[in-house]
């Protein structure tokens, strides 16, 4: 946390923008699926932070606090926008037949996650798949699998029970997996 402190041990607006701005902006962008809305939310959050700089003197919980107020701001922005996701709520578990077996053959993917997530086209496909998730799944997915937050913390932020977080996360992963399979699944032999 020392890198966001000035010589007097105080946070400065410039350092907050530089060190934390991208994280705030990216979280808002992925939750809202819209660059312009994300800019509005990031501006509100970052200005809120710099107005309260005196209360932060290198506290280790700054990142946690930033996550929390960004999530709150994004949810409030979405509610105000009154454009809640009306897309069809896909049923991810229709992957299976009544007898519980896979409905279709499951093939491996021609992707190396260690390198391909940083390639432009792969990044675009993953971001698009995230943006197309229904809101209730996308919020949990972004916080868990993009930001890497623990499920319990996500439950606190979204006022969800732990089983609800896990259920939504699993369904989000199934939807993401299905969306990415269209691009990365190897052709049938």
């Amino acid at each position, binding site marked *: 946390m020392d890198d966001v402190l000035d010589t007097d041990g105080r946070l400065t607006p410039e350092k907050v923008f530089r060190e934390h701005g991208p994280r705030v902006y990216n979280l808002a*962008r992925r939750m809202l699926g819209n*660059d312009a809305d994300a800019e509005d939310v990031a501006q509100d959050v970052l*200005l809120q932070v710099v107005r309260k700089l005196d209360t932060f003197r290198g506290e280790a919980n700054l990142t946690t606090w930033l996550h929390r107020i960004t999530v709150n701001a994004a949810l409030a922005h979405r509610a105000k926008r009154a454009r809640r996701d009306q897309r069809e709520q896909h049923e991810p578990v229709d992957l299976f037949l009544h007898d*519980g*077996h896979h409905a279709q053959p499951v093939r*491996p993917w021609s992707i190396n996650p*260690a390198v391909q*997530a*940083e390639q432009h086209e792969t990044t675009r496909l993953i971001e698009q798949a995230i943006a197309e998730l229904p809101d209730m799944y996308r919020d949990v997915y972004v916080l868990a699998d993009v930001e890497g937050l623990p499920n319990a913390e996500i439950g606190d932020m979204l006022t969800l029970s732990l089983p609800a977080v896990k259920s939504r996360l699993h369904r989000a*992963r199934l939807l993401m997996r299905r969306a990415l399979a269209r691009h990365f699944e190897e052709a049938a032999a």
Partner: protein
Amino acid sequence: MTCRELAEILLDYLDGQLDEVRCTTIRSHLDACPHCVHFVQTYQITIQVSRRLPPAPLPAQLLERLQRALEGEANSPNS
């Protein structure tokens, strides 16, 4: 265990939240089901690629808006 049942507890399995009996049941199913092997692998890849997403840079116009807002607050009579 069916493929659907495996999928339904996959999150807990990958998080190490299942007891040894259920882990053994899953491993036995995987030994006999190549479709589920691929399913589990691709489920894990989905998580891995999302965790490696590079952040988009802060847009220049947003930085300008932030600076203008700060300057406006500094110049306001109440500051």
